[in-house]
């Protein structure tokens, strides 16, 4: 592979007449944890939804592992090796924790209604292997005690964790995390930073994270991109971005940035 793992160039997205994202360049190198930050409505999640192919860009290209995925279909993305979580949790609410992780393995399992209905040779072994992988992931995330709970009965913090497990269980090369600290207090979000670092080591992957919690981002990320009104206003190491006057201007009135100096 010659270039970066993920390379976005000139990404532009319109909603009606509104330009939500305007010519954004962004890249993630193999093994990096990269943060995407900015005030509310800056277009961070819109960029995510474009990488996931839920939104259609009007201009720009998205390349992953040297493959152009700008026109790929949304269900193909995880097969290329990009898995994601959602800001407000998109779990299969009626399923148990285990079943949600098995859905996460959908892309790496063989399919076919007739094969499944007739229980042709291999179906039982496939299911057993998938369940073993899911159990291993539950153990890693400390969710084994909630294995057979229906996820809608779990507290929000645990639901976020189940969603993380569901994204990880297909062993993606790139993990997209949309506000992993939502609903967590300060102490919990520090634990989260440790967890994300451990995930990078153990599963040998790269992370692109959208986050509001500045203290989490500053301590966790190797590099940051700052968006404001759909434009990239700064990029670089967390320590540089924090001192950038343009960034301070954009965040004026948002106290998180000062807290992060601690």
């Amino acid at each position, binding site marked *: 592979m010659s270039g970066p793992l993920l390379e976005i160039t000139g990404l532009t997205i319109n909603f009606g007449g509104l330009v939500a994202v305007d010519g954004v360049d962004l890249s993630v190198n193999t093994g990096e944890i990269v943060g995407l930050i900015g005030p509310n409505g800056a277009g961070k999640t819109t960029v995510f939804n474009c990488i*996931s192919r*839920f939104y259609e860009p009007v201009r720009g290209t998205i390349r992953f592992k040297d493959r152009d995925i700008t026109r790929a*279909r*949304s*269900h*193909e*993305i*995880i*097969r290329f090796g990009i*898995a*994601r979580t*959602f800001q407000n949790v*998109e*779990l*299969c*609410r*009626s*399923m148990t924790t285990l*079943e949600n992780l*098995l*859905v*996460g393995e*959908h*892309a790496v*399992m*063989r*399919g*076919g*209604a007739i094969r*499944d*209905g*007739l*229980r*042709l*040779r291999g*179906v*039982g072994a*496939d*299911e057993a292997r998938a369940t073993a992988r899911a159990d291993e992931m539950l153990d890693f995330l400390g969710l084994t005690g909630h294995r057979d709970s229906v996820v809608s009965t779990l507290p929000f913090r645990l639901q976020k964790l189940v969603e993380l497990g*569901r994204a990880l269980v*297909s062993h993606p090369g790139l993990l997209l995390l949309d506000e992993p600290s939502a609903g967590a207090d300060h102490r919990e979000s520090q634990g989260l930073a440790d967890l994300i670092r451990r995930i990078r080591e153990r599963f040998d992957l790269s992370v692109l994270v959208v986050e509001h919690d500045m203290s989490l981002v500053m301590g966790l990320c190797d590099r940051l991109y700052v968006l404001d009104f759909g434009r990239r206003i700064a990029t670089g190491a967390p320590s540089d971005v924090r001192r950038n006057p343009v960034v301070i201007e954009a965040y004026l009135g948002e106290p998180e940035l000062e807290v992060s100096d601690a």
Partner: protein
Amino acid sequence: MHWLRTRGRATAPYGLGLAAVLVIPALLNVIPGVAPGYVLYLVSLAFIYAVVAIGLGILIGHTGQISLGHAGFFAIGAYASALLTLRLGLPFVLAVLIAGAVSAAIGFLLGLPALRLTGPYLAVTTLGFGLAVPQLVVWQGSWTGGSSGLHGLPLASLPLGAFTIVFRTDQDYYYLAAAVLILLTIFARNVVTSHTGRAFVAIRDSEIAARAMGVDLVRYKTTAFALSALYAGIAGALYAHLLHGISPEDFTVLLSVDFLTMIVLGGLGSVGGALSGALLLTFLQNALTRLPVVHDFKNLYIVVLGAILILTIAFLPHGLAGVTRSVRQRWAARVRDGAPRVDQIVELGEGSGVR
């Protein structure tokens, strides 16, 4: 038989059901005052409806895609099998399989608009399909028999190597319907408890999550439609040969509503629920037509059907399957702990409306 092994917890009720299937005919012969032939005919009819209900349950209950037109698939299966045996002289088994395949193919096609339509829009589309099928049959009367229908269908038969089983009596056909129902129940349970079934439920719970996890909506929505149409088509073929004749009047919109009520009453998202809902409703319909008091009220069944739908949705949102599930859970908890815990008592209080 490798594929007969079903997974999942609730296999005991199925064992009991199988035993019941085997002893019912013998039992009817010793009970005085019943006509065994007629009761067996009625049970066969219930089994056939149960096949439709199980297929419809996969579509509505598991995948979350509504259909108000399954009588249309039922009619397509019935007419395909009737025409193939009467006009082309094809053997029964082949005709039933082709009928199922034709219905599944049309189900696949009807699944395509479902990719863009949801909720009430999909309901109206499928309703239109269900309304159109009998009208098309009447319009093409020269080869479909028109409004007078097709009659004198040959006996069902099953070639087994050197000799052939012919299903002559009501009891014979009862065993045939039971065998088909059992095989298709196992198939349905296998599908919903595996990879494909999880993709269906993922679509129902969150299309966004399903797509992000790699579920191809085009493939799985059309698969769900085709699968449920396959069930309705095979059931339609069995229906045609049970009655030895069919006419467009057998396949009204009311029948589609019947099918829907069966799975709502039984409990959406449960194969066992669809089965019990179909059996219960078929017997109820028959019993209502025998009530002497309301003999002149021909459409009483429709009123009762509406009442069942409303009451089930209001008081048993998970249907009969939900009731047995909560009874089983409570029973398991009581056995495990010896005595009910405080939270169980609170739960019981809430369940009985004490709030």
